[in-house]
């Protein structure tokens, strides 16, 4: 079953002399439960692709379907709500809310939706990621690896259709990178999650089920 699909996705930045074709017509399909790595050099358009897939930015043309839904047919407000229900994000710089503690950060997307957290499920995630002892901590008191684990927990908490991660280990040393990635893979398997990971690191990409290469805004191998 296809959970994520991009069709002829194009994105052009800037005007006049500064025009940049970040995406030049990308087609991509991801099956449910898959762990896909998108690999490319700096400026290849891989971050732009992730933004489009996650509905963070609108493409110049083309379509993206998440769980069968054409996400760019939605208005901004609807898209935001769709995003918090169906898509989990893990960023290189963690993007935790600095004024909320670990637990609050994890359940924030659920509460923004006006729901109370599915407690056993969230507890399970917390234990799996080893965050039990850190729940009351504010993000800036945690190490990079710990912060990234919180971000993973937050992405999983809403039981999204897909998880999109952008260089999740970019700020971590290699040992921690291995740990975090291992956890990402284990949790995604345990909770049957679909993951699209962006990286420029071949070694890390090897952990994925499938590797997609992108160059100058086009997919060159899949």
């Amino acid at each position, binding site marked *: 079953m296809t959970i994520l699909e991009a069709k002829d996705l194009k994105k052009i930045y800037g005007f006049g002399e500064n025009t940049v074709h970040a995406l030049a017509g990308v087609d991509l399909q991801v099956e449910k439960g898959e762990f896909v790595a998108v690999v490319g050099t700096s400026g290849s358009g891989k971050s732009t692709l992730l*933004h489009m897939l996650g509905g*963070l*930015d609108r493409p110049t043309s083309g379509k993206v379907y998440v769980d069968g839904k054409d996400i760019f047919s939605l208005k*901004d*407000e*609807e898209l*935001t*709500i769709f*995003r*918090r*229900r169906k898509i989990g*994000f893990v*960023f290189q710089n963690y*993007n935790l*809310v*600095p*004024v*909320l503690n670990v637990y*609050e950060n994890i359940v*924030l*997307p659920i*509460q*923004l*939706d*006006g729901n109370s957290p599915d407690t056993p499920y969230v507890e399970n995630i917390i234990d799996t990621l080893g965050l039990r002892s850190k729940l009351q901590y504010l993000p800036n008191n945690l190490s990079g690896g710990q912060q990234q684990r919180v971000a993973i927990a*937050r992405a999983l908490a809403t039981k999204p259709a897909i998880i999109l991660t952008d260089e999740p280990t970019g700020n971590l040393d290699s040992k921690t990178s291995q740990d975090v990635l291992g956890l990402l893979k284990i949790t995604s398997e345990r909770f049957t999650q679909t993951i699209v990971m962006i990286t420029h690191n071949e070694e890390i990409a090897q952990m994925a089920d499938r590797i997609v290469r992108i160059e100058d805004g086009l997919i060159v191998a899949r």
Partner: protein
Amino acid sequence: MNVANKKCIQQLSIKSMKATKTRNLIAIFAIALTTILFTSLFTVMLSINHSIQQANFRRVGGWSHGSFKYLTYEQFDEIKNDSLIKQYGLRRIVGMAYDVPFNKSQVEIGYSDAIHAHWTYCDPVEGRLPEEGTSEAATDTRVLELLGVEPTLGNEFTITFDVDGTKITETFVLSGWWEYDEATVANHVLIPHSRAQAIFEQVGIGSGIGKDGMTGSLNMDVMLDSSLHIEEDLNKILANHGYQNENRSLGDNYISTGVNWGYTGTQFINNIDPVVVIAMIILLFIIIFTRYLIIYNIFQISVSKDIRFYGLLKTIGTTGRQLSRIILHQALVLSMIGIPFGILIGYGIGIKLTPVILSRLNGVVQDVVSADPVIFIGSAIFSLITVLISCRRPGRMAAKVSPIEAVRYSEGTGYNKKMRKAQAGASLPRMAWANLSRSYSKTAITVVSLSLAVLLLNMTVTFTNGFDMDKYLSDRVVTDFIVADADYFHVGKFWGGDQALPEEVISTIASQPGIETGGRVYGKVSPVEEFITEDYYRTLHGRWNDQETLDRLIAMSEKKQRWFTGWTSTALRDGMLCP
């Protein structure tokens, strides 16, 4: 989409507020300042209105809502228990003193019960009201001064006065006195009811009413539930008991009523110069606008600074509406702290400022500071409105933030200049100057808010300090004093050749040192006949006469079908001497 996430948004808003303590302090300060401006403005406005109202009551001679005039005892007994009447005070008119030394004053002798005396400012500062069955009387310091009697309790004084056409001379023992109020037209000599009754027996009125229709009658002053519809209430009371105040000739169910114009005359908006109203509204708008700019700037800067935070919240699924609600919530919390502070301080400033302004307006108006809840509610509402419109644009900016752009956001991205012709190298002043053109709208807002603040200060200073008594008077009066026969000043007296000042007096005054120049007024009051319609006659004379008198006057003049004669005084008014 309406979901139950209010709590979550409030929590986020409170927590992120805790991270911006300096911004909060500045915002609270700005909101408090806004409220201070509104509160002091409203306090001054309402206090002036209140003081003018009080002054009007003193000129009227009382603060009861209205009165029923010239009642018989039967009529009084019927009306007094009407449910519309909250409280009443009773007066029985005995007579007036016209002769020297009272030829320049209106001195009324009568009985007033304790409530009536209180309502008409007859509250003895020393002693008490006269006791029944005694020869006591209470009066003000002016009457005593004219009589040459010391205001000492127990002193005797004798007054000659007119009771329904009969001259009576009576001696009283002073039981109490109060200070004379120069604003009040009439001076009262209050005597006990037993003494009044004895005088009525003496002149043959008994318990009835004299030939003039007033002497011996009862005046009932009333307080109603509200001062807003006094006339309607008085009419309703009359109707409840089968009386009317429209027409005397319709039957003997006529009762004359009076409305205290101190209430009707000071409905602020009706009574005030439209130019002043417009000026006040403009001032209000300038306050709102200057405050808007300041509070807007505070929130705008704060949102720009936290733009990544809002972008991050948007990435993980906070909608634009939720983001602007966070800003709104913060603004409301800051207002809840700032506004009460502002009201307290502003009220204090208003209290201090009102006497300053009033002292420049009129000697008669005393500084009575109004503590009307309208002040507090009004300024709270105005401040809140200002805050709400101030944080609308920053809220929209936060709502519109794109999760991707937020990371790259820096101010002044709309900067379209392509080239900069500068070769001399960078210098601090040149950099500062160039920075001003980085964002024109921002520069404009800064310049406008700085200059408006100065404008506001200027206007306030002008408003409070700018009243020049000489300028004010130059339109109305040119002389410093007037010398004339007493009849010239007495209301209702005629004056003519008999009252002219002797030439010697004029030359004596003119030769006094300090007299710069003077002028004379020639003229006399004389009856003039002209043809007018009954309607005109009624509007002209209705101002000074009650319905009953009007009807009588018309009946007297009814000679030529629908034409009436009227009295008009044609005279050049006063001229005099200026030092």
